[in-house]
């Protein structure tokens, strides 16, 4: 905002008579905001029948019964939050570790390979993670992790019950893989932006490499890494196809990590094309509305955070 006065080019163009090029390009550039507003309005208005029928109780109701037309979002909100947070918890240490590695000097070749490798994870289509999770990861986990754990530690609640091939845990792992590139590439940029003087001062005082990272670099980059985490949370909450294919699609709150569940996105993907009547689709659209509002809030927060951090660093 301050740049408008600071930039001479802008000041000059403002003094000129209104030019047509500026007007029509500005109109075209409004396409994205207009679409965004339309999405919010259309999804909101199509959820109205369900909003009217169930009110705020929709968010805390546990039953999802299309036959009796009683709909509650709680199992899906639960599934969404668990997969997203569990996925983040797995991805965060590795993502920051990779970022620390990538932000170091030297070994450019290896760093290039690992950096590209992690970023390519973001390029692979979600549905490919889905089929991989379903046919490769799920059987392996069932045999080597879920089954032994549920047999030996079944008395602990989160490991209880029969282990299923598609379950909450696998969906969380797939989500963790999918948010890894977001986490590591933003964290790398933030860590790289930490002023070199701080590192040098720390090393000059006799701190080891790790002490410099742990006590100086990471605390300085904390806000940015937090921003990256929130951005990754936004991705994790909205992840659809891979989760739909691996979570097991059961419309209830599972008692264990190895039980099937459903998320807001996955239940829409699964049921929307079969939803008949007027209330059932509206209820699914309301789930979409909840999902959209949550991701919107999370994303705006993250963007503001990341933006402020990178601006502060530049100063």
């Amino acid at each position, binding site marked *: *905002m301050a740049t*408008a006065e600071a930039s001479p*080019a*802008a000041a000059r163009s403002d003094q000129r008579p209104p*030019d*047509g*090029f*500026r007007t029509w*390009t*500005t109109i075209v*550039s409004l*396409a*994205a*905001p207009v*679409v*965004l507003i339309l*999405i919010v309005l*259309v*999804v909101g208005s199509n959820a109205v029948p369900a909003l009217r029928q169930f009110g705020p109780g929709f968010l805390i109701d546990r039953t999802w019964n299309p036959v009796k037309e009683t709909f509650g979002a709680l199992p899906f909100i639960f599934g969404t939050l668990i997969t997203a947070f569990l996925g983040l918890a797995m991805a965060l*240490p*590795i993502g920051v*570790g*990779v970022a620390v*590695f990538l932000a170091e000097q030297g070994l450019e070749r290896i760093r290039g390979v690992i950096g*590209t*490798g*992690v970023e*390519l*994870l973001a*390029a*692979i*289509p979600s*549905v*490919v993670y*889905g*089929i*991989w999770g*379903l*046919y*490769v990861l799920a059987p392996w986990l069932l045999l080597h992790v879920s089954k032994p754990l549920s047999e030996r530690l079944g008395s602990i609640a989160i490991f209880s019950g029969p282990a299923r091939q598609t379950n909450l845990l696998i969906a969380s792992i797939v989500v963790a*893989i999918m948010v*890894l590139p977001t986490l*590591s590439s933003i964290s790398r940029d933030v860590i790289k932006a930490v002023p070199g003087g701080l590192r040098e001062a720390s090393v000059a005082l006799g701190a*080891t*490499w790790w002490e410099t990272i*742990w006590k100086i670099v990471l605390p300085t980059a904390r806000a940015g890494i937090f921003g990256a985490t929130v*951005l990754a949370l936004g991705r994790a909450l*909205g992840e*659809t*196809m891979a989760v739909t294919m691996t979570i097991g699609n059961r419309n209830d709150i599972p008692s264990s990590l190895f039980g099937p569940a459903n998320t807001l*996105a996955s239940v*829409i*993907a699964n049921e*929307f*094309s079969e939803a008949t009547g007027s209330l059932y689709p509206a209820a699914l659209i309301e789930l979409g509305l909840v999902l*959209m509002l949550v*991701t919107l809030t*999370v*994303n*705006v927060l993250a963007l503001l955070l990341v933006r402020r951090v990178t601006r502060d660093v530049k100063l």
Partner: protein
Amino acid sequence: MNRNRRRQSGNLVARLVIYVMAGLALLPLSLVLLFTVVKGLPAITHVEFFLNTERPVGVPGAGIAHAFMGTIIMVGLASLMAIPVGVVAGVQLVEYGHGRLADGVRLACDVLVGIPSIVIGLFIYAVLVAPLHHFSAFSGSVALAVLMLPVVVRTTEGAVGLVPGALREAGMALGLARWRVALQLILPAAIPGVVTGALLAVARAAGETAPLLFTAFGNRFMNADPSKATAALPLIVYHDALTPFQDLVNTAWGAALVLVMLTLLVNLTSRAVLRRQIRMAGRI
């Protein structure tokens, strides 16, 4: 002395852990690629896979030509909608992007990128599918265009922003109109970056499934009519992978391999082009 030795060994352990983590981060990519190639290769080594359409289970010679066709039509239409608008908007953000409004446009793009694609599917269903009472390739392509638009805007802005300001000043000093400077001088100089940005958006759109579920819907037959339901590569992966028939699951793996090769190819080339452009911009 003892304390220092402990600090040194702690340092060593931490360094080791960081290196192991960095190595571990390559594991998922290698595993996904490995299994997609191993399981998909048997399907795509038959030429019929690219020539035929779906066959009943048990009949050999099933292919994904109809899905190829659908993906090409939908991504093509989506590109026609999203790329011109996105490029112009990106240029606008560089040329006039100092005000509140431009900041709002940037924020809207960044937020739009973060909206779950399934919600965009619901949106297009409500706007284009429900009122017309049938699924269509056109509605699918609009959904993909919504996904592509913010990506094209931001990558164009990035690429055009790399063009040295001296070029713009030179053009203006020669008395060229602003639109000539922007579209005939600056934009051509940024073309490699703009094209790769657009290609990345195309690759992303080609792999999207969620927004097509209730718009393009899928189709077992060849279809080139944009007003009818249409198959797409990611839809094939999703639908066929969830069937109990090994034939169909193999087809799904084959389609997944094609998708992965497509996206990796586009990503790796665009990376190389972008790197070159940044290096060239630095030299000027």
